[in-house]
């Protein structure tokens, strides 16, 4: 009758015990955090531990679970950015890079197409005029030969370039399939580079995720503000070295064909006319470190790979005495004069940097340039004190709420109220244990979810107890009433909880940010509360009934 098989009892006890152990680390949060950091550092150093790390590791026994609930930005403080990658930037770069190729291949058939000129057009579209319209067919064929097939599943078989004739002009742009493939690559590369940059700054557990087609979500706990984060990830950091052809103070000066007018980063109304094509690009860098120049001012020293070193060496040898420009993101950061042939492929960039700026620039150069610019759609900064205040308030509310519910249950159900309270405590521990184990992030709405779960978890017990009361009123024996109470209440518990789970799942799938945090805690809370109400309470109640064999039962 009221018999629970031994294996089932042991299993229930084992789960409860696991819950207590797995929830325990959260009670010693900073301690366990230090321990975990130390373990990570020691593993990274292949088992070699410094004295400090060994001490930190000893703060928490290795045999105990050490997973913690990670705290969300609203609790820990930090920065949140939602960036959109301007994927179409890349189309323009690709098309611009194509022009010399197109020119050279048309030059081969000069006798048929005549002279070739690039015409102005919107970014991402190349318009080439030929002087002899009769050669159009030959010209199109020549340009089409430059295309290559697209390497994706959906775009397989199509060509990466779309080449059509428009009067006397050839119009070249990326094909639709190639655009899709390029977008994919651009966002993926941006994600990688952002990850490298954020990792270089070295904060704990950053979240860097792709969202939708062209968006990237970045959450970095512990950073001072979203502005700081933007300074690290928002800069394209495209570095290149150019020949300087002149200086001017006129912002509207005509740089002449195949040259560019670029502003100086530090001095207002100083512009340089530089060669369009770079002598060496940032992609040839292998290393960059913050350092100081001979006057003790902050600078960045860098090293080229062999190709870059050769190009740079040859150029400096040929242009001694001439200035060259170091261009970062379309601004000249410095334009020194070449004193001598620089062999060996290393150099130093000076400019008016602060120490912080030079450190940041070194990080950016090491991590590589972003393939495209980014705009920020959403940014949030939460200060650490505000987070701490929220944790404290949530804790206080949780403890007071818990005590009030405990008292209310004891007043309403007496001894059975105490049973329900034990189940409630086990429920909270299990909830925390599961959240820690799956590595869920606790947010402020998440705390609210836990507190709400406390209130609602009692519902299952209430349903059971009210049912037992009814059965007792109907004159059933205590043991029978308890059995029927659990059995009959189960259908209601199931139905009401399934609807709760439906709501939680939908919140999780559709929602974002705070909605998700709340969905996770309430969703898991429903499962743990069903387990505790149905199994744990039942075990306690049946044990009590079998032990005391009460003739009369008051619930």
């Amino acid at each position, binding site marked *: 009758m009221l018999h629970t098989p031994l294996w*089932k009892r042991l299993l229930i006890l084992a789960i409860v015990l696991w819950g207590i152990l797995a929830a325990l680390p959260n009670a010693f949060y900073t301690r366990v955090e230090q321990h975990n950091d130390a373990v990570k550092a020691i593993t990274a150093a292949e088992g070699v531990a410094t004295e400090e790390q060994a001490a930190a590791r000893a703060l928490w026994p290795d045999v105990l679970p050490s997973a913690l609930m990670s705290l969300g930005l609203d609790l820990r403080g930090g920065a949140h950015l*939602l960036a959109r990658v301007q994927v179409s930037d890349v189309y323009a770069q690709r098309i611009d890079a194509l022009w010399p190729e197109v020119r050279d291949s048309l030059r081969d058939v000069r006798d048929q197409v005549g002279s070739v000129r690039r015409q102005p057009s919107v970014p991402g579209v190349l318009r080439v005029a030929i002087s002899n319209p009769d050669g159009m067919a030959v010209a199109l064929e020549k340009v089409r030969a430059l295309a290559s097939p697209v390497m994706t599943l959906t775009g397989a078989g199509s060509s990466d370039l779309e080449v059509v004739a428009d009067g006397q002009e050839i119009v070249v742009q990326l094909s639709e399939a190639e655009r899709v493939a390029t977008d994919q690559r651009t966002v993926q590369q941006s994600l990688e580079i952002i990850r490298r940059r954020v990792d270089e700054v070295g904060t704990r557990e950053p979240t860097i995720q792709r969202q939708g087609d062209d968006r990237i979500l970045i959450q970095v706990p512990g950073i001072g503000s*979203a*502005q700081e984060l933007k300074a690290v990830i928002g800069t394209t950091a495209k570095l290149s070295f150019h020949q300087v052809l002149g200086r001017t103070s006129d912002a509207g000066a005509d740089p002449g064909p195949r040259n560019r007018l670029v502003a100086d980063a530090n001095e207002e109304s100083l512009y340089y006319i530089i060669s369009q094509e770079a002598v060496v690009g940032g992609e040839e860098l292998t290393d960059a470190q913050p350092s100081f120049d001979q006057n003790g001012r902050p600078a960045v020293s860098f090293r080229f790979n062999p190709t870059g070193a050769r190009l740079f060496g040859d150029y400096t040898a040929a242009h001694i005495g001439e200035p060259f420009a170091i261009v970062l993101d379309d601004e000249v950061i410095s334009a020194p004069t070449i004193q001598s042939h620089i062999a060996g492929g290393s150099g130093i960039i000076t400019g008016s940097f602060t120490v912080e700026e030079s450190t940041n620039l070194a990080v950016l150069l090491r991590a590589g340039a972003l393939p495209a610019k980014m*705009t*920020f*759609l*959403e*940014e*949030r*900064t939460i*200060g650490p004190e*505000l987070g701490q*205040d929220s944790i404290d308030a*949530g804790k*206080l*509310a949780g403890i007071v*709420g818990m005590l009030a*519910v405990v008292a209310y249950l004891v*007043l*309403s159900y007496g001894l059975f109220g105490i049973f329900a309270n034990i189940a409630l405590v086990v429920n909270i521990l299990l909830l925390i244990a599961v959240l820690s184990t799956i590595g869920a992030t606790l947010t*402020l*709405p998440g*705390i*609210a979810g836990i*507190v*709400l779960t*406390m*209130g*609602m978890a*009692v519902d299952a017990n*209430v349903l059971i107890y*009210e049912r037992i009361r*009814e059965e007792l*009123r109907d004159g059933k024996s205590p043991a029978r009433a308890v059995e029927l109470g659990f059995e*009959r209440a*189960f*259908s*209601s518990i*199931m*139905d*009401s*909880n*399934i*609807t*709760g789970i*439906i*709501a*939680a*799942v*939908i*919140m999780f799938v*559709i*929602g*974002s940010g*705070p*909605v998700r945090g709340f969905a996770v805690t309430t969703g898991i809370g429903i499962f743990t509360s069903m387990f505790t109400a*149905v199994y744990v309470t039942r*075990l306690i109640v049946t044990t009590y009934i079998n032990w005391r064999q009460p003739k009369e039962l*008051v619930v």
Partner: protein
Amino acid sequence: MAWRLKLVPEKTNIDFFKLQWVTFGASVLAVVVSLLAVAVLGLNLGVDFKGGTTIRTESTQALDVGVYRAALAPLELGDVAITQVFDPTFRADQHVAMIRIEAQEGEEAITPEGIAAIEAALVAVDPAITFPSVESVGPKVSSELIWTAILAVAAGSLGIWIYVWLRFEWQFAVGSVAALLHDVIVTVGVFSIFQLKFDLTIVAALLTILGYSVNDTVVIFDRLRENLAKYKTMPLREMMNLTANETLSRTIMTATTTLISLICLVTLGGDVIRGFVFAMLFGVIIGTYSTLYVAKNIVLMLGLDRSDKPKTGKPSDHEFANVDA
């Protein structure tokens, strides 16, 4: 017999349909007023949904909203709303304000220069000021967030409707979904009438209300189904009253424990989640009301087919009852 705290007497015999036209009329009126309020007054949308920037400031000096406003006026930021925040959990020298700035023309999130200028202007009038949080959402994202929020509530209702339909009769599904829409709409109406800030967390609260309301309703329906099998000839109206009375003590008990938790959160949980918790508090109260006065009435109006259809060979109406632990 040991003493027990009882909010509801052991045996009640309340006629929940006595004033059915008054209560049902009141519900219909509340829904209509709420919809009108949203249409006429609109909602006080937070930056999540409208775009723009909110800055939370904190200072040890007593703050004067007028001074802040004057400090920001030269920056020409358009619509700027500054409100002081009060909370019992604040320290005596903790003065908090929320500054809300509308989305700037032609920009997504606010620019670093924009934030720097605002912060500099405020520091000039109050050197002790700090900025614990700055949140900026571009108009593009905010319009998407509105749609996902509406979608979430709609999908939630649909999911619940399908589940209740599968588990009970279609009349019950209509009744419970009507009750939960009633709860959600009236809650939104209250936010509109009092112009409380409506942001993403409020949507989470609405979805919880949805879950709670239906939970409450389903428990009664479950009991009703049981009684339908038990008393084959009792008129539906009487049976519904019996069912509601039988489950009344549970309904009140659960509502009370949930309210206890929520009241603790609303008073002690800090101002950051106050709106969120308030929405749930209100929702639990109205959810309990709608369980007793809306859901059943609709089922009664729709009527039930009580001809004894052979129910797929299941003698027990407890479909989940065959477990033992």
